[in-house]
């Protein structure tokens, strides 16, 4: 692994579900280490499927995925140690407590008890969950649930953080707090892959942006490239995804 080894390298990824639906078709992209990468696309475009292929939730039909130079399929255990995932949907034991959920995830990643306890305590404090630590997940509000999912993704201090719509359904206060925290983590050297439907979120946080439509990358580049046209990111997004660019969008530059 050299300094130039991408955090994520995907070559010709194809994913066909058992029913025959082609979710991702010949997708190739690279994410540089330390990048804050925005992954945009309409619902059903293939964002979550791509993330699921990277993290092992979905099988890969064909193509190659490497995480910091390690094959995510052949050497999946080594690759997964470096990834923290905050999925779009809540995939937790809803009867478990906040502390248990974060602690167990640390355990799966092989963290020893002392280290695990220290990380769990720090994350519970960082995400303002102290008053809720002993509550069951199902008793929490939507915003608190989202915080637990984020804390769980960070418990093993991963080099690569994948966030699939992490601010969907959360209040403005948490969103701003989360943005600050993500920027802090990125400054510390973590590579972040973020999907979102909030263009202002991508615009504010990311340095590189890729747009996916119908399972294919239709545009990718540094953020600045998306602001060379009137209407900025919104116009670029609509144009790339094949939606008509309205005057309202074009005039919003």
């Amino acid at each position, binding site marked *: 692994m050299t300094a130039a080894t991408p955090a994520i390298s995907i070559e010709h990824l194809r994913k066909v579900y058992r029913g025959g639906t082609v979710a991702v078709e010949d997708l190739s992209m690279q994410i540089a280490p330390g990048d804050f990468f925005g992954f945009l696309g309409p619902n059903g475009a293939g964002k979550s499927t791509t993330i699921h292929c990277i993290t092992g*939730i979905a099988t890969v039909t064909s193509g190659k995925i490497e995480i910091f130079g390690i094959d995510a399929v052949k050497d999946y255990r080594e690759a997964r140690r470096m990834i923290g995932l905050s999925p779009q949907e809540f995939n937790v034991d809803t009867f478990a407590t906040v502390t248990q959920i974060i602690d167990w995830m640390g355990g*799966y990643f*092989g963290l020893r008890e002392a280290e695990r306890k220290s990380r769990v305590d720090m994350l519970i404090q960082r995400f303002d969950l102290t008053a809720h630590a002993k509550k069951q997940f199902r008793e929490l509000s939507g915003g608190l649930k989202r915080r637990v999912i984020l804390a769980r993704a960070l418990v093993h201090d991963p080099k690569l953080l994948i966030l699939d719509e992490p601010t969907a359904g959360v209040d403005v206060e948490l969103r701003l707090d989360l943005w600050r925290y993500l920027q802090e983590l990125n400054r510390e050297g973590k590579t972040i892959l973020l999907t979102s439907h909030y263009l202002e979120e991508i615009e504010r946080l990311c340095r590189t942006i890729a747009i996916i439509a119908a399972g294919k990358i239709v545009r990718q580049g540094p953020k600045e490239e998306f602001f060379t046209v009137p209407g900025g990111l919104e116009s670029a997004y609509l144009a790339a995804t094949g939606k008509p660019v309205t005057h309202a969008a074009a005039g919003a530059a």
Partner: protein
Amino acid sequence: MTGRMGINWIGLWTIIRREWSRVWRVPIQAFLAPWISALMFIFIFGYVVGGNIRHIAGHRYVEFVLPGVLMLNVVNAAFLQSTSQIYFQRFLRYIEETLVSPLSYVEMIIGSLAMTIVRSVVTSLGILVIGYAFGATHMYNIFEFLFWIVSVSIIFGLLGIMIALWANNFEQLTMLNVFFIAPLSFVGGVFNTVSMLPPFMRWIAYANPFFYFINGLRHAMIGFNEAPEGLGVLVTLGLIAVLGLATWRLFSIGYGLRE
């Protein structure tokens, strides 16, 4: 970070901790129910009815019945533990927690089976205590006893995992128990010896794997054996090997686990 990982012991232990916590949310269902059921079987069939039945090879009927009742409950405990743990993980999608972590397929299977064995052993200990109250608990060979409890737990743990991977609803989850486990276990010699069966039906007992499990445990507890020497152990180890390989294969292709 490119070095090969060894066994993820902490991850394995975490699966057991998580499942222990889940089981203790339903202690009545997990432990009290099988203990009460065993108590009723021992009291009615062993003590009340058995009091009027002549000794079998020098053993009171309640002593003869206890290993069979114990084995029935081990089979149930193992099957319910493994089906519920895998199915609930799929149903609530927290199976994804282990899928995204650095746990190998073998570790995931062993973690599930370890808790299956723990639940079976705890269930067995309770039934041994109940049997002791009736003066029916004996231990002819403790190592044999442990072999049968652990190996039968593994067999039904593996079967439970496969059913839980296949099932798409709670109805399907109970099918194997209703149509296969319950009937075969009852005709596997819980209440009778093979010699009590009409001669033309005895081959059914020898063709039924449950007979070897119950017979093996009975030998471990009271020294009574009706099967050819070593055949039960061979059948059991063979089943573990076949079911273990099949389960590993299902995990490695992501059947019921990965999209």
